[in-house]
């Protein structure tokens, strides 16, 4: 195991080196003089020359690259070009936790949406609930993230009450559908057993519906934009309230992909003989789904989980912009617009390195989970 991890890590080093080369030389080509960015367009030539010397711009490109790389390895990324000219590491340290928290929250919310939807879909493929869930997933995949974020704002912030009623209406449709199915299922029972069966299921349905209505009812008001830090006086609740909608947006996009993958694998698993055996023993459908079918079907999902985490860390840019969150994405876009080269270089390098490491970790986890490839080349 350790050998696998070591090999994998060793393999990422040349890739990270190329990444740093590309980042530095690509972004060094940004048009415009960094000294002008610092001093402003009206500065006199002597002052500009002095700033160039301070930034090391008078030295050869290759020397500057190794200087920059050496600093970056030790956590020193230089200073911002713009006022207040803070060290880049300070700026990044303020921004990175926001992006990481959003990614992690999205990774927690997404399975809560994807796994139940996939289980319901796969248990009766082609029927009403499956058609609704599959169509929704197909549609969500086609919505660009900025549009989804605006839609989420439109629903949960601007039309909060309306959304609550719409959700309750959807729930009512669902309850009517389930009640109808219960009525049909009851016909299979002899008249004497019908009453207790209907009563048991009916009570479960009513309790479930009441709980969901309660949840919809207490749906809090979410802010349109802004971020409350975990360390601020308002504490965890406010922090989660400000992070929920952006995380939901990110989660919905991932969940739609996961749902389609898991649904396909579940349908394949449900055709296996051991499922047939479990069914023949009289196991209820939900029990088979949860305890027998889910685990062997979750393999492709786990592969995609890692890819998703990597994509989230690089992909929160747009959501951060729309919800005005002080994360890495906002930092990058703002610095690109202001031509603040050191910040852009460091941010791109940092995100790319995290991305590479997460992908390497996924490969290792994959080898750990699947014994078939553990002994092969990793």
């Amino acid at each position: 195991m350790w050998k696998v991890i070591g090999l994998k890590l060793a393999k990422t080093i040349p890739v990270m080196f190329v990444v740093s080369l590309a980042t530095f030389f690509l972004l060094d080509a940004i048009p415009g003089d960094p000294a002008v960015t610092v001093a402003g367009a009206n500065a006199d030539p002597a002052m500009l020359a002095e700033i160039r010397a301070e930034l090391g711009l008078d030295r050869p490109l290759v020397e500057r690259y190794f200087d920059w790389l050496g600093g970056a390895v030790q956590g020193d990324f230089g200073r911002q070009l713009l006022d207040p000219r803070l060290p880049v590491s300070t700026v990044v340290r303020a921004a990175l936790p926001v992006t990481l928290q959003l990614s992690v929250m999205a990774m927690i919310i997404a399975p809560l949406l994807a796994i139940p939807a996939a289980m319901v879909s796969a248990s009766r493929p082609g029927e009403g609930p499956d058609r609704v869930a599959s169509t929704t997933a197909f549609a969500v995949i086609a919505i660009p993230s900025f549009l989804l974020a605006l839609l989420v704002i439109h629903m949960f912030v601007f039309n909060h009450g309306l959304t609550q009623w719409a959700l309750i209406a959807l729930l009512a449709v669902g309850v009517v559908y389930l009640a109808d199915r219960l009525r049909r299922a009851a016909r299979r029972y002899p008249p004497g057993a019908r009453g207790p069966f209907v009563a048991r299921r009916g009570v479960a349905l009513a309790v479930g519906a009441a709980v969901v209505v309660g949840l919809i009812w207490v749906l809090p008001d979410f802010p349109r934009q802004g971020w409350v830090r975990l360390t601020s006086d308002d504490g965890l609740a406010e922090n989660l309230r400000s992070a929920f909608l952006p995380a939901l947006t990110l989660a919905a996009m991932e969940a739609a992909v996961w749902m389609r993958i898991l649904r396909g694998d579940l349908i394949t698993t449900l055709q296996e003989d051991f499922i047939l055996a479990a069914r023949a023993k009289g196991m209820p459908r939900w029990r088979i789904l949860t305890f027998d079918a889910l685990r062997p079907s979750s393999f492709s999902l786990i592969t995609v989980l890692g890819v998703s985490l990597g994509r989230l860390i690089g992909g929160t840019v747009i959501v951060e912009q729309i919800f005005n969150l002080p994360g890495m994405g906002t930092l990058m876009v703002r610095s690109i617009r202001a031509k603040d080269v050191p910040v852009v270089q460091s941010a791109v390098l940092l995100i790319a390195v995290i991305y590479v490491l997460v992908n390497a970790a996924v490969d290792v986890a994959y080898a750990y989970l699947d014994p078939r490839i553990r002994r092969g080349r990793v």
Partner: protein
Amino acid sequence: MSDASNARPAAGRSLAIGLGLAVVGAVGTYVGLTAFTADDGWWKYAVVAVAIVFVYNGLQRACRAVFGPTFQFGLWLSIVWMGLIVSGAVFADLLPLAESRDVSKALLEPIDLRPNLFSRHPLGTDGQGLDILGGILYGGRVSLAIGVGAIVIGVAVGMLLGVSAGHYRGWLDRTISFVTDSMLAFPPLVFLLAVVAAFNPTIVTVTLALAVLAIPTYIRLARANTLVHAQREFVLAARALGERDRSIVWRELVPNVALPVASFSVLLVAAFIVAEASLSFLGLSVTRPNPTWGNMIAAAQDDFRTIPHGVFTPGAVLFMTVLALNRIGDAARLRWDPREAKV
């Protein structure tokens, strides 16, 4: 679903029911979209949603009655939609559209008009009085040019490198694979941001940046497909007959690899249209006043609460286009990618 098994005489009735549903739905959509513009009642949304379901089901029924029960309605609807978008983008200059690009010519136009299909501004105007329909058609031109252009370059370069790597193996393969892995190490959006930061964002630079993003994927696809084909008898036969390497690559491998690799392209065009829209939404692609779907949405975002149609009209077009391309792309892969077709 059950009318699939019906005998032929029922087809006429099914057609009539379908057309009836579609007409009711169309009227409902129109009423929902226009008649209640005075107040923003929630039931407007409900009417439109139900009406659209009516139209879709009605037309599907009618088409199945005419073309047989296996008619893939969603796929054909997607093809028709893409036909509309493409021809709109091509012939935008010839259509009698109100001004959508030059603010100085739209000074006298009313701003923030609501959509009204029978006026000079069928989809309304934006905050500067520019026509939204015109913006959507010209924006479609940018989206399609960038998406398709990037794919064409990506396929050409990626296929060449991928087939070469798979055929020659050795150091060439190792070098190409290493560079590919390194290129895939950048999160796509971050790479795009870095490129537009380094070069000024124009149609050409954004197209090239997206092409660079596409190349590694195509190299991998082409290489994997080449490795499969290189084992086949016809390549061995060609070699035995004394064909040279270059001839084997061009006459035996490329024709066989091309279709499965290219069948992936429609899906990637969809992804690239989204990527371009995201960049122009961030103001890092083609900028105002030249319209793109992304920058139209960004411009309307400020008044989003009071005038949601400014965001949702171009947004709906973008969504429908991506949905249509995904649908067509899935069908193309089922048809042309042997690995998918087996399932």
